C-alpha cells in the first residue's frame, strides 16, 4: 500500500493507483474531460490529452495529469491550489476557444460534458480569440459528425478501434488540424464503420450525434391517411425512466405504453413479441443444423451465430465475407416485427402496406441503418419506416408536454403485444442465448428444462467471452457469448480456424453489456453501474413474467397456427429470414 496526502487529507491506496482514482477514493472529484472508463468492462481511454485534471504535486516542476500519474509514497497532492485552478480554467478556455459554442442549438445541450465543465469552473468569458478548426460535416443513416466540436479526447477512436476493432476512425493530421476521422477524411459511410454508434455514446460533446428522426415520425402521426404502429425493444423499458429523473434500472414498460398511446400512435406493440418469434425461427434453425451435423452432414455450418444485432451483422459482412453462411438467417426482432406488421397485420386491419407506417423504438443507432437496407423493402416500401432511439422517444414525450412519471400503467395492444420473459432478456448480453436455450432444449428434448436460468452467460463484468455447455439429453451443446466486436472478431477467427472449441451456438452483441448499453440509450457517461442496473431490471422483469419461454407465448402459437404454419416453413422463410452480403474491401488489379 502507498500513503500520500491529497489536499492535506491522508489517503492509502494500492500501488499503481492513479492520483485521479486515489482522489475519488478520498471523496475528491477532480474534473476530467478526455478520460473515460467503463469500470469492469475492459474499456479505458486515458490519453492524458485534455490536461483538465492537472494537479500540483509538491516537488514536481510542472503540473501532473491526475488521470495518468501514479501515486507515490509520501506524495503531497493539491487539487485546487491557485496555480491549479488558473491552469485548469485556462485549459478549458483554450478548448472553448476552438469550439463553436452553439450550445443552445446543439444536440448535446444539457448532456454535454464540456458544458458541465465550463459551468463547474465558472467560465464567464473566453479571453482567447482566434481561428477555429473546421471540417466537412458528414453523416451516415445513424451517426452525424460535426468535428468542429471535437475536443480530441479520442474516446471515439479508442471505442472504434480497441473495443470494437472496427477501425473506421483514427486520429489524423497534426497540431491544430488534428482531428478524429475516417481514412482520407472520407464519408463515414464509405469506411469500415458498422453504425454501432458507440462513438456517439462516449463523445463528451456534440461532435458525434445521432441522426434525429423525430420529425419524420411526427409527420407520419399527423398524416390522416396513415396508420402508425410502434414497437419498443426490450432494453428501452429499463432505461427510458432515466431521462425523466428516475433511478437507473426502474422498469417503465406500462408507463411507456401509455405515453406512446398519448403521442398518437394508432397501435402500441412490442418488439418483445417479435423477439419470441425470433427465438422460434432461430431456435428451429439451430436444431436443424445440429441434427444435420449429427446425421453426418459435413457441410453444415456450425456454430450458428445470432443475427439480431445490426452492428454485428454489418461487421461480419465487412470483415468475414467467407463466413456469411454461419449466422442465423432469421431477421432481427425489429425486422421480423416489420415484416409481420406490413404483411399479416396490415392485411388483418385492411390497410395497404404503404399506408401502414411502422416505427420502432430502439436502444440502438445501427437499427436506423438496418431498417433502410434494401432487402427489408418491398417495392421501395420499408418494413420498418423509422427507427427512433430511447433518447429520441424521451425527447418526443417531453416535446408533447408529457412526463413519464405521470403516466398510468397500460398494456400493449393485441395481437403483437404479448411477450414472455425470454424476449425481455434479449436486451442484456447473453439473453438471446438463454432465451434460445429455453426453447431449443424443450423442443429437442421434449421435456421441461430443469433449470430455466442460464447463469453462466449472464452478467456484464468478468470474462470477455463466456461459455456454457448445456446437456440436451446426452448431447453436449456448447454455447459462447460476448459483447464488443473485438471479442466477436476473436471468435470469428477461431471459427475460421476450424472451431477448435466445438461451439454450436454463439451470441454476439456489439455494445457494452448488450442492447442495455446501446448507443441510443440515455448517456451513461462512463458509469458502468448504470448498465448493471439496467441488466438487473431486465432479469427482474423476466422473473416476474408468468410465461418465460418463447414457444409458450399464446400469441406466437396463434400466429403459426393462423398464418406461418411452422417455424422455418415456406412463408416464414419468405418473410422472416434474410441473407447476407459481402461488403468487404476489394482490391482490383488493373493492367
Amino acid at each position: 500500500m502507498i500513503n500520500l496526502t491529497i489536499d492535506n487529507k491522508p489517503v492509502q491506496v494500492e500501488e499503481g493507483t492513479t492520483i485521479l482514482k486515489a482522489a475519488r477514493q478520498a471523496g475528491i472529484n477532480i474534473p476530467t474531460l478526455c478520460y473515460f472508463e467503463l469500470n469492469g468492462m475492459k474499456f479505458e481511454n486515458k490519453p492524458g490529452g485534455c490536461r483538465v485534471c492537472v494537479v500540483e504535486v509538491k516537488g514536481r516542476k510542472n503540473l501532473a495529469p491526475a488521470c495518468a500519474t501514479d501515486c507515490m509514497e509520501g506524495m503531497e497532492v493539491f487539487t485546487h491550489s491557485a496555480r491549479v485552478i488558473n491552469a485548469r480554467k485556462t485549459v478549458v478556455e483554450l478548448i472553448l476557444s476552438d469550439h463553436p459554442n452553439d450550445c443552445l442549438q446543439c444536440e448535446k445541450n444539457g448532456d454535454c460534458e464540456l458544458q458541465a465543465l465550463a459551468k463547474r469552473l465558472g467560465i464567464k468569458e473566453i479571453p482567447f480569440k482566434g481561428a477555429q478548426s473546421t471540417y466537412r460535416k458528414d453523416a451516415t443513416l445513424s451517426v452525424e459528425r460535426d468535428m468542429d466540436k471535437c475536443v480530441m479526447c479520442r474516446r471515439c477512436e479508442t471505442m472504434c478501434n480497441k473495443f470494437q476493432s472496427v477501425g473506421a476512425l483514427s486520429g489524423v493530421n497534426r497540431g491544430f488540424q488534428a482531428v478524429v476521422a475516417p481514412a482520407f477524411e472520407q464519408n463515414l459511410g464509405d469506411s469500415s464503420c458498422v453504425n454501432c454508434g458507440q462513438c456517439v455514446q462516449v463523445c463528451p460533446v456534440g461532435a458525434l450525434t445521432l441522426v434525429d428522426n423525430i420529425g419524420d415520425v411526427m409527420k407520419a402521426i399527423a398524416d390522416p391517411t396513415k396508420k402508425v404502429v410502434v414497437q419498443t425493444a426490450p432494453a428501452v423499458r429499463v432505461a427510458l425512466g432515466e431521462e425523466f429523473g428516475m433511478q437507473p434500472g426502474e422498469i417503465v414498460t406500462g408507463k411507456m405504453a401509455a405515453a406512446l398511446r398519448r403521442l398518437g400512435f394508432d397501435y402500441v406493440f412490442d418488439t418483445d413479441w417479435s423477439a419470441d418469434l425470433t427465438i422460434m425461427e432461430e431456435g428451429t434453425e439451430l436444431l436443424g443444423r445440429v441434427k444435420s451435423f449429427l446425421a453426418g452432414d459435413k457441410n453444415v455450418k456450425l456454430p450458428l451465430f445470432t443475427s439480431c444485432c445490426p452492428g454485428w451483422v454489418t461487421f461480419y459482412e465487412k470483415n468475414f465475407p467467407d463466413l456469411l453462411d454461419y449466422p442465423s438467417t432469421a431477421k432481427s426482432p425489429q425486422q421480423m416485427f416489420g415484416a409481420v406488421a406490413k404483411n399479416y397485420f396490415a392485411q388483418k386491419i385492411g390497410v395497404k402496406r404503404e399506408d401502414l407506417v411502422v416505427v420502432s423504438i430502439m436502444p440502438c443507432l445501427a437499427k436506423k441503418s438496418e431498417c433502410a437496407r434494401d432487402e427489408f423493402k418491398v417495392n421501395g416500401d420499408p418494413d420498418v419506416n423509422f427507427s427512433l432511439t430511447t433518447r429520441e422517444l424521451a425527447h418526443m414525450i417531453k416535446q408533447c408536454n408529457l412526463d413519464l412519471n405521470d403516466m398510468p400503467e397500460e398494456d400493449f395492444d393485441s395481437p403483437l403485444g404479448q411477450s414472455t420473459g425470454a424476449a425481455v432478456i434479449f436486451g442484456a448480453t447473453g439473453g438471446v442465448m438463454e432465451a434460445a436455450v429455453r426453447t431449443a432444449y424443450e423442443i429437442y428434448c421434449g421435456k421441461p428444462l430443469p433449470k430455466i436460468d442460464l447463469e453462466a452467460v449472464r452478467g456484464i463484468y468478468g470474462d470477455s467471452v463466456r461459455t456454457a455447455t448445456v446437456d440436451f439429453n446426452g448431447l453436449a451443446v456448447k454455447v459462447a457469448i460476448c459483447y464488443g466486436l473485438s471479442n466477436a472478431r476473436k471468435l470469428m477467427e477461431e471459427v475460421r480456424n476450424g472451431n477448435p472449441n466445438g461451439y454450436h451456438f454463439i451470441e454476439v452483441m456489439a455494445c457494452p453489456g448488450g442492447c442495455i448499453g446501446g448507443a441510443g440509450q440515455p448517456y451513461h457517461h462512463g458509469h458502468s453501474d448504470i448498465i448493471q442496473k439496467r441488466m438487473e431490471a431486465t432479469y427482474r422483469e423476466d422473473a416476474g413474467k408468468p410465461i418465460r419461454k418463447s414457444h409458450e407465448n399464446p400469441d406466437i402459437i396463434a400466429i403459426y397456427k393462423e398464418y406461418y404454419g411452422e417455424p422455418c416453413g415456406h412463408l416464414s422463410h419468405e418473410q422472416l429470414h434474410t441473407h447476407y452480403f459481402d461488403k468487404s474491401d476489394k482490391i482490383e488489379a488493373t493492367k
Partner: protein
Amino acid sequence: MAGQINNVGLIEVPMGITLREIIYEIGGGIKGGRQFKAVQTGGPSGGCLTAKHLDTAIDYDSLVAAGSMMGSGGMVVMDETSCMPAIAKFYLEFTCEESCGKCSPCRIGNKRLCEMLEKITDGRGTMEDLQELRNLAAVIKDTALCGLGQTSPNPVLSTLDNFWDEYVEHVVDKKCRAGVCKKLMRYEIDREKCIGCGKCAKGCPAEAITRTDYTAPGHKLASMVIDSEKCLKCGACIGGCKFGAISVK
C-alpha cells in the same frame, strides 16, 4: 553559431566561456559593424538573451538561470535588424507546425500565442494582450504533455522579460524599431527629392505608386506618391530609386 555574425559555423568551446568571448572573439563580432541585440540559444525551445547576459558563463545551469537553455547547443546571433516580437512569432510558428495535437495546451495554446503575437506585430495588440500572453505562456509550460509544449513558450517568455520595451512599442506606439513588421511600416516618397522618372511605379507589383500634380522646384516631371493602402511593403521601389527619395518610416 549562426545568424548576423561574421564567422559562422561549428565551434567547440569549453564550458564556462562567456557569450561575449564566443560572439566577439570567435565569431568576429556582428556583421557590418552593427549593434548586437540578442542571442538565441538552445534551439526553438530556448530563449533569447540580451547584451546584459554577454558576460554569462556558458553552462547548463547559468543558461537556465538566465531564462534560456543549452538545448541543442545552437546559437543564433541577432542584431538591431531583428524584431524580437517577430522572432518570438517565428518560433511559435515552428512549434505550431511541430505540435502533434494530442494535448490541448500545446495544440490550441500555441496557436493562440502565435495569433496574439501576430496581432501585436500587426499593430493591433493591446497591453491586456501582453498580460494574457504571459499567463498563457506560463500555463502552457505548466500543463503541456511533452517537452515540446513544456518549452515552446520559452521564446515568448524570454523576449517578454528581456525586450519588454520593444513589445510596448509595438502595442502602444505601433512601431517596429527593427523595421521588420511590415504592417507597422510606411513607405514614403520625398516629393522634393523625387525627379518623377517613374521607375518605382513600373517596378511596383501592387501598382500602388502613381504620379502627383506636384513638380518639385528644379525637376521637370511631377513627383510620385505611394498609396499606403495598396502598398505591400515589398521594398522593390526603394532598391530601384537612385535618388534616395523613398524611405521607410
